[in-house]
């Protein structure tokens, strides 16, 4: 069977195609892979697969199950870095289709693992296959959206990456509902839930891969005139994916993202416990769960809001806002605890978490400004290793410093103060990194006779141009 319909050349838009079809295509993928944020709903049920009502000695431990998500996030960073160039050159449809196969396959292999009670199969399924799907799926629509929306690249990528934050909203209640449907007094329906999720997500992602289109090389939005005056921090040139690694700009943005995510991810994972310990008696476990839900909404909304804002104030300035505002908010958190102001505490964390999401959503457009559109998806893939690193730094900083304080006699209500000041200090370093970012030196720009130019010409020759 020929799979040529997946090729980039078969996805070039015909005249009359609306670019507003592309964000839903991207959302089809991001809403599905965003399920990763809700994977924890399976943790407790998977500790009772044998014992049913309570864990049996042969049941899996929570610590063993925690590795599933960690492996998936590791493979997210690794696959987006390794397959970035392939995604860029193969086109979005091929990448989305591959991501759909890996994502659904990961669920099916995990279902077999749960059925046979073999944890290694779950590691392989959700961890490895699912992680690869996360990496490929996450970067697959980025450069396509930037090419369709040269006038609003921040808003366009913000919309897709907002879907990744929103995927958990759908997955969490859906998974709980499915498990309840498939469970009985003698059985927990995790395997069946994995199979249904695999089928539903596959169908959803395939729809995305069918409707996605790339613009013809000479296409531009109606009425849009590219700026004629050169802007200092927005290049008109392209940088080859592996040459980007040789620039200081790539590593400075890597650190800016890593530090911003470290600060956010540390508190995101501990928000429930932190709020209850800082406000004992005022925030109950039920209220804390509500607080976590509200944080997820701001995480999602921040992705669209900040990325869209960056189109007006610039990417560098957006990150300056994250660093400066974040610094003051982290410093204010211990104060809110000392005066017992729950509302101030909640406001601080909601703004912080919106900027955490905003950091993810604004970075593709930042890379586009620095390195051009040609390899932005692949460069973005390489940059996501910053996320993997932050996934280790953030929780470690919060958990270990809290533990150290508690064992040294610091009251639980104040055990997070040092962490908050350290997070604020991290943002100062992020500010300095962001400040040092200048335009990429012209020696890194691709030359006109570069292979990419030739490839683009070849693609243009086999298909009818769109929107001429």
């Amino acid at each position: 069977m020929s799979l040529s319909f997946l090729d980039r050349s078969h996805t070039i838009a015909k005249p009359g195609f609306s670019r507003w079809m592309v964000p839903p295509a991207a959302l089809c993928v991001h809403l599905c892979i965003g399920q990763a944020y809700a994977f924890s709903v399976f943790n407790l049920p998977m500790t009772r697969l044998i014992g049913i009502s309570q864990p049996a000695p042969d049941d899996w431990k929570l610590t063993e199950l925690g590795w599933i998500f960690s492996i998936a996030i590791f493979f997210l960073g690794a696959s987006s870095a390794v397959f970035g160039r392939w995604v860029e050159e193969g086109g979005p449809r091929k990448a989305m289709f591959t991501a759909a196969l890996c994502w659904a396959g990961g669920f099916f292999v995990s279902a077999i693992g749960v059925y046979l009670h073999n944890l290694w199969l779950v590691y392989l399924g959700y961890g490895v296959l699912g992680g690869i799907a996360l990496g490929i799926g996450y970067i697959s629509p980025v450069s396509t959206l930037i090419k369709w929306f040269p006038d609003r690249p921040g808003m366009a990528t913000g919309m897709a990456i907002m879907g990744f934050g929103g995927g958990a909203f759908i997955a969490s209640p859906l998974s709980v509902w499915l498990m309840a449907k498939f469970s009985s007094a003698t059985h927990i329906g995790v395997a069946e839930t994995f199979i249904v999720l695999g089928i539903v997500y596959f169908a959803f992602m395939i729809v995305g891969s069918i409707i996605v289109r790339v613009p013809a090389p000479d296409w531009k939005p109606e009425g849009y005139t590219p700026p004629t005056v050169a802007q200092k921090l927005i290049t008109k040139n392209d940088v080859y994916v592996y040459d980007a690694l040789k620039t200081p700009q790539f590593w400075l943005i890597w650190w800016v993202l890593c530090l911003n995510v470290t600060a956010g991810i540390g508190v995101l994972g501990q928000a429930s416990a932190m709020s209850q310990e800082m406000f004992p008696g005022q925030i109950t476990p039920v209220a804390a769960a509500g607080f976590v839900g509200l944080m997820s909404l701001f995480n999602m909304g921040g992705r669209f809001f900040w990325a869209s804002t960056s189109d007006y104030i610039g990417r560098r300035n957006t990150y300056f806002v994250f660093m400066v505002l974040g610094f003051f908010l982290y410093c204010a958190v211990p104060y809110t605890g000392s005066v017992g102001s729950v509302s101030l505490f909640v406001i601080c964390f909601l703004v912080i978490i919106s900027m955490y999401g905003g950091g993810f959503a604004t970075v593709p457009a930042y890379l586009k400004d620095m390195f051009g559109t040609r390899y932005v998806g692949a460069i973005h893939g390489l940059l996501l290793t910053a996320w993997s690193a932050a996934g280790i730094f953030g929780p470690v900083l919060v958990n270990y410093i809290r533990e150290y304080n508690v064992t040294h006699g610091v009251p639980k209500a104040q055990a997070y103060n040092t962490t908050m000041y350290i997070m604020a200090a991290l943002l100062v370093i992020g500010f300095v990194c962001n400040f040092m970012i200048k335009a990429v030196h012209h020696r890194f720009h691709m030359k006109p006779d570069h292979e990419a130019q030739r490839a683009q010409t070849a693609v243009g020759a086999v298909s009818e141009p769109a929107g001429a």
Partner: protein
Amino acid sequence: MQQAQETSMGLKLTLAWAFVGIPLAWGVIQTLINAMKLFQ
């Protein structure tokens, strides 16, 4: 001819946005209901 093409694209746009928008809206409403517990 062009009007038919525009109508068809409008329909496709509506369907595509509904396809992703309805599940997302459902998830957001579920989360908001849970989040309201913070204020109870």
